[in-house]
């Protein structure tokens, strides 16, 4: 099927705070999608729900027609904002771990990327700098042949060269059957890579459109439009 993600009336509250409200979203395969919104707008909540880390209060969500669960986790590759690998592991052990649990993990690809970055696989993760750890995580996540990649703030707090590397990795790993969701608040740096953008404001979906369509219609960059829509 061509729709990889389908959200209907998705709502999630935390106590008295509403993180997501009545979100209806349909994403197709083969697209690179920007999930854009300020901090606290609900982007991370949505991504956690896609990955089965949160259960929505009402509404439904389907990944390739499946509810979040063991089967959906097999085809979704998630890069969270934080470092989530055990510190004591060596890089090579982290690779074995991914290989063990994910059938779509391509070990050779991972080692190729490591090699190109001159990263020593025998190093323990705790000896690496934060930036390097993040790169290792990105490599692991992108070495899977998943149907849906969820990257949560992959370029925040990263130097420009690393940012280029990350975008380059995303582009060269592009697969027309897979969709990449990039959640970020740094838009100018990535707009040229995106097919479509989704604006989330205070838990609600306010826009979902192709990038080029917006530029043609509005005659401005996504970044400019974003500043307008989210003006404080």
């Amino acid at each position, binding site marked *: 099927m061509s729709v990889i993600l389908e959200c209907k009336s998705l709502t999630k509250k*935390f*106590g008295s705070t509403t993180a997501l409200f009545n979100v209806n979203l349909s994403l197709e395969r083969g697209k690179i999608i920007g999930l854009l919104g300020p901090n606290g707008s609900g982007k991370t909540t949505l991504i*956690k729900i896609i*990955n*089965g*880390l*949160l*259960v929505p209060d009402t509404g439904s969500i389907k990944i390739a027609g499946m509810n979040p669960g*063991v*089967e959906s*986790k*097999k085809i*979704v590759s*998630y890069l*969270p904002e*934080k*470092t*989530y*690998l*055990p510190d*004591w592991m060596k890089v090579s052990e982290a690779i074995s*771990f991914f290989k*063990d*649990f*994910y059938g779509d993990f391509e070990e050779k690809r991972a080692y190729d990327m490591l090699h190109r970055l001159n990263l020593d696989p025998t190093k323990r993760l705790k000896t690496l700098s934060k930036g390097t750890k993040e790169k290792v995580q990105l490599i692991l996540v992108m070495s899977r042949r998943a149907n849906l990649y969820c990257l949560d703030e992959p370029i925040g707090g990263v130097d420009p060269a690393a940012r280029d590397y990350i975008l380059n990795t995303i582009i060269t790993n592009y697969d027309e059957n897979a969709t990449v969701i990039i959640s970020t608040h740094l838009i100018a740096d990535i707009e040229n890579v995106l097919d479509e953008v989704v604006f989330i404001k205070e838990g609600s979906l306010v826009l979902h459109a192709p990038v080029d369509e917006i530029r043609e219609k509005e005659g401005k960059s996504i970044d400019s439009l974003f500043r307008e829509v989210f003006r404080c």
Partner: protein
Amino acid sequence: MLAKLTKHELYATGRIFLPLYSIMLLLSLINRGFSSIGELSSPFKTLKGFMVAAYVISIVATLVITFVIIILRFYKNLMSDEGYLMFTLPVKPSQLINAKLIVSFLWNILSIFVVATSLFIILGTSKNLEMFRGLLDLAVTGLKSTFGSSYPILIAEYIIMIFVGTIYQILMIYVSIAIGHLLNEHKVIGSFAAYIAINTIIQMLVSIIVLIWTNLELSIFTYTPYYGTTETITGNNVNYSVSIVQAITKQIIPFSIIFSVLCCVAFYLVTNYIFKKKLNLN
């Protein structure tokens, strides 16, 4: 998947436990070496004393650290940042719990064996062994006379109780951590509070049950012995008191086991439910 999780769990925890247990056994060997040497000159005497102290500490450490690591491992791997990794693996939450439960149980049992082995190393002189043998024979005779020739069943029940008790301890820790996780803030304090609360509630439950039991005029005291025929001793009185012991034991240990198993099931189900429906990693 469960096998993979278990393997990984063993590896992740083994890197702490194996060195720990090895050090313990090494210290026992060293101490044994020292004691066979006999009288020593001054500097060596201090060293020997030091070794003895280190050994005693290591016994305590082994048992305490085993317990602490079981707690920390569960918390760190599932409830902190690593949880983002574990809960997005294509596995069921129950499998995550099972892997940790199995491995924690194994280390717990192993720690007991390690301590026992180390004691054997320290005290295993032929003289001591003979004395131990004698004690063992005495115990067996005592058991036979009190419980009849089917006393091995009692021992089996006792071992089962220890196993179930270990699982019970582990699951109580797990469910406390899971309940603490439900809070938005102060999750750790919440876990401690949950642990204390659960302990208290269960103790109250047990007291109530015992109260009811002993007040009901159950004719347990007129039971015929469960474990086959008693060795007749003298007269009805002795048979009577022997029955009490047997009956109570027949009831208390099995009851204890069943109650613990029910608690374990409850702890497990609650933990699993929280992971499935109420997960909220930060």
